[in-house]
């Protein structure tokens, strides 16, 4: 992963570095509502994940991004190349776990990780509620493969979870922007991942944020992370949807205020 190739943007007047990494189906524009908050406090870096954003097909590599570990290697490369270390890393959805994996091998790069709508494993198994069964996922992949446009049109409002036309159109835009085969491959990588061991080993403080009703992340998942991670807090926003940074930015900011105040000099 390369900051410039991924349309990297830098803003803000703070001294400490913050890295914002979006989730599946959006691009860095997803941070628009939260960005002013970060700009006031941090030196802010954001970028489009491989496969996402304008020309995402040119930044994607089917073999490299076959697992979240591949993304984590990419993230480490990007941070090293850009001279970022000891940063506040904010990851939404898949990016939350990408940051978790990267922090295990390179604790020096991260001072804290904020995870919005994070899940270390989506598949249910005895003793673990991930929210999905294998048949659910097969049906999801089948409908994505059969008619991507129709799938995206139905999937967007479901994931947004609240009646927010702007958020739905923003998420739809991100989905339509992705090449369907890349979107399918990415969602397979995400939904078949199991990085619970990495989550357990994250060596830096973690701020978990999720909504009370998230179609991708059951509340049990947030509870699991809060319990199993070494140093994590969990805040539940009393709202619905997988994209609270788009649909409930004020609530997210209040949580950030609460936890990050002490971090910023």
């Amino acid at each position: 992963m390369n900051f410039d190739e991924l349309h990297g943007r830098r803003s803000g007047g703070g001294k400490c570095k913050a890295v914002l990494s979006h989730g599946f189906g959006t691009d860095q524009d997803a941070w628009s509502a939260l960005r002013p908050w970060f700009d006031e406090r941090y030196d802010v870096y954001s970028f489009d994940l491989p496969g996402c954003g304008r020309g995402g097909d040119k930044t994607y590599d089917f073999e490299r991004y076959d697992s979240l570990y591949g993304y984590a290697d990419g993230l480490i490369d990007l941070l090293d190349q850009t001279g970022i270390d000891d940063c506040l890393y904010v990851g939404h959805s898949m990016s939350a776990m990408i940051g978790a994996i990267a922090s295990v091998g390179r604790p020096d790069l991260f001072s804290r990780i904020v995870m919005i709508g994070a899940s270390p494993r989506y598949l249910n198994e005895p003793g673990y509620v991930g929210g999905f069964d294998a048949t659910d996922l097969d049906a999801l992949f089948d409908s994505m493969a059969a008619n991507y446009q129709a799938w995206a049109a139905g999937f967007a409002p479901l994931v947004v979870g609240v009646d927010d036309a702007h958020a739905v159109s923003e998420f739809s835009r991100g989905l339509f922007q992705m090449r369907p085969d890349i979107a399918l491959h990415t969602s397979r990588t995400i939904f078949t991942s199991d990085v619970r061991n990495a989550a357990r080993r994250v060596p830096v403080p973690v701020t978990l944020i999720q909504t009370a009703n998230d179609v991708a992340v059951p509340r049990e998942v947030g509870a699991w992370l809060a319990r199993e991670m070494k140093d994590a807090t969990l805040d539940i926003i009393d709202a619905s949807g997988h994209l609270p940074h788009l649909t409930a930015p004020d609530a997210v900011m209040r949580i950030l205020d609460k936890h990050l105040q002490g971090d910023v000099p």
Partner: protein
Amino acid sequence: MTASISEALYELCGFARVSCEAELVVALEVDAGYRASAVAVSPTLPLSSFNLRNSRIFEHAWASAPVSASELRLPSAVINALPALPTFVLFVPAGLDHAPYSGLLLLWTAPDAPPPLVRHVPLLAGSVASALGRRREAVRQAAIRDQFNDLLESVPAGIVVFDGDGHGAMVNERAARLLSTEPGRHEASDVAEPMRMLRERCDNRKELDALYEGHMANVHYSVTTHWMLGERTYEVDTHPVHGDGERGRIWLFSDVTAELRMAANLRKMAETDPLTGAANRRSLESEFARIMKTPGARDRAFSVLMVDVDHFKQINDTHGHSVGDEVLRKVAARCRTALREGDLFARFGGEEFVAVLAAPQEAELTAIAERLRRSIAGSAFRSGTLSIPLTVSVGIASGTGRDAPPASFLATLIEQADDALYAAKQSGRNRVVSYTRQRLAG
């Protein structure tokens, strides 16, 4: 095959891990683009593939000494597979042609330096490379076999391939159905026997026997022919592999029944008058030309009968064209019945028909012509509630091939029969007039 090689690699990794007190040992296949996949991992755990381009592993000149893990950028997949952060790393290069950066990766997590035994690990390089190479070849062979099998079952033909050494044979599903055997590999004799039995069942087995016997002496022969099995016909193509019979022989069975049937239908359509189902003029001419080419045909007598329905125009005018068409169909049918089996009969155009009779005696010719005339005049034609009395006039001409050049023989006879027909019409219709007789009478 692949499984046993992977097993051997796994044992090798396990041996290295235990003897060197390593935490994790991975046999890696790494291609020229640094894409790495774990072929064997000890202890057994899932390890996704990763890219080692930025790992710095290949910038290091590996000898027998492990290096500090901090000197390398190990992939997240490997780091997360370890129970703790790695402390020491050793890589044993074991490059292959198609995966030049392959090798054995050993990782330690203990703070103490690995035991001295580790310096012997590079001795394993040869074994690792050879096992990786054999595994790659086995995987490649399996992939080729899969592709080949898929291809074999995708083509709409039965395929039998005999090995060059004459011992084995491969049969695809379609061929297996045809030969009442199982698809897959067989002893050559277990395939040759059902093929011989299939040939025995063919309607044209004698021709096939003769055809293939003619090629017995030549191991490189190629033949494409039809095997006729009752209602179905197979085009059977046999040729040596790459033109060399020593390398094996391929048999392709294609069911061409539908194609042949369609071709026959097209041919029939081109030769038949669509209204009456009788032959058309063109096919009568070509059939006559074919007969004239047979030995002795030019010395034989032929007769032409021109048959014309009397006052046909009135039928069309009175009852309409559909009744007229029906009448023509029935006239054609009655004429055909009145003629002998080998006689040629065609619709010549309009309400005119022509028959060509080979070598009739004078008396027989007259009898046939009369029989034909009476078959029309004898009973009225019925169409729905209509009853239409009908007659025909017939003109006859006879001759042998010696009387005219071959190209104009039939035309001459037709012309003469037409003259006789004209005379029959002139003299009151519903009668038979012979060309010679008319001339004698005139």
